[in-house]
């Protein structure tokens, strides 16, 4: 059987499945981000530009707002996100999903540091573990660190502003934030595919498939985010940046009311 040169196709096939055609090539199990080739170079570079600008702003804001004592927690959040992204759990037949961890990051260390932490993880994965393409790095930072934070933070803040900062409300907010963040990442990929996808594949079908499978993955992301945030809230509520200011305001209001009554 003449297989011709080892093309991207056959190499890629080897990443997905062991078939007789690619026997001998390495099977890969943990390749979880957008690889090079899915999205054309112009769109990839545009995404890299946007990501660079946003991360630069987030670095600047983090420098100005993060207290010295908060740096260790922010570093740990990056480590935990790295670990969590390695854990692929099964979702239905022949498919798996893994946490993104961006919602968790923004709730724990704030939106700017959260974007920075997840970006660090995505960059480490691309540079050292060949997970996610190098040309596609900007796309992966945009989808996984930025678009996720952009919806997770407002969603979480909305819930805790409306329902208060009790443990139940915080966990519900974290769950919703986790869920919508995964859908945002999936929607980001669909938009990039619509503009710069290299395959002649109907975008509508990709959108339906992406959002379908990521609804399930998002539900799991939501549950895990809620559990982790709930656990940290019980032990060290001061480490849940997303509620610290609101809780302080609630306490101030309570003491004011106590004085007045």
């Amino acid at each position: 059987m003449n297989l011709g040169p080892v093309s991207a196709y056959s190499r890629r096939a080897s990443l997905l499945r062991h078939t007789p055609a690619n026997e001998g090539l390495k099977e890969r199990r943990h390749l979880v981000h957008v690889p090079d080739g899915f999205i054309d170079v112009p769109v990839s570079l545009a995404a890299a530009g946007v990501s660079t600008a946003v991360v630069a702003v987030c670095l600047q804001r983090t420098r100005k707002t993060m207290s010295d004592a908060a740096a260790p927690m922010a570093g740990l959040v990056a480590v935990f996100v790295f670990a969590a992204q390695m854990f692929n759990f099964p979702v239905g037949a022949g498919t798996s999903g893994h946490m993104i961890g961006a919602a968790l990051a923004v709730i724990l260390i704030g939106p700017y540091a959260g974007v920075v932490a997840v970006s660090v993880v995505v960059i480490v994965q691309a540079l050292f573990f060949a997970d996610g393409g190098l040309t596609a790095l900007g796309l992966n930072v945009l989808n996984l660190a930025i678009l996720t934070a952009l919806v997770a933070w407002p969603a979480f803040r909305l819930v805790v502003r409306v329902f208060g900062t009790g443990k139940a409300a915080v966990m519900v907010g974290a769950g919703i934030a986790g869920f919508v963040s995964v859908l945002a990442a999936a929607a980001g990929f669909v938009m990039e595919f619509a503009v710069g996808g290299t395959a002649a594949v109907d975008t509508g079908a990709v959108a339906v498939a992406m959002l379908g499978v990521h609804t399930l993955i998002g539900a799991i992301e939501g549950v895990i985010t809620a559990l982790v945030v709930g656990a940290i809230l019980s032990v060290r509520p001061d480490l849940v940046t997303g509620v610290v200011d609101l809780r302080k305001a609630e306490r101030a209001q309570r003491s004011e009311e106590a004085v007045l009554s």
Partner: protein
Amino acid sequence: MTTTGRRAVALLLIVGMLSSAVVAGGAALFASSAPDGLESVAESEGFAETAEDSANADSPLADYGFAGVEDEQAGFGISAAIGLTLTLGLGLGLFMLLTARRKPGELETGFSASPRKSEPGSPPASDSAPDWPTGG
């Protein structure tokens, strides 16, 4: 930093690294090897073949393995340990560098992790509004 402060940070680092190590260890033992969401969609919708290997696809840590270690789980475990250490070094290093590069008095309130107590020398926290859209 006071001795208690240093102890609290050390405890936080130990607990944080241990929980991440437990998650990574769980991944080594139990993670599903089925293609993930994006990859399965790429297969089912027929654009998986457009993927190309990145320039560093042959890096010793590629695909969360460890070059030379045949056993997949062992390779994954070593790779995970290196990844956690790298991320801690780069992440913690970056955040410490950012906070260290702040000039005195430049600390603003806003959304970033807060310490348990205000640090000596830092300006008193004000109630200024956060500059990030707060969604409510």
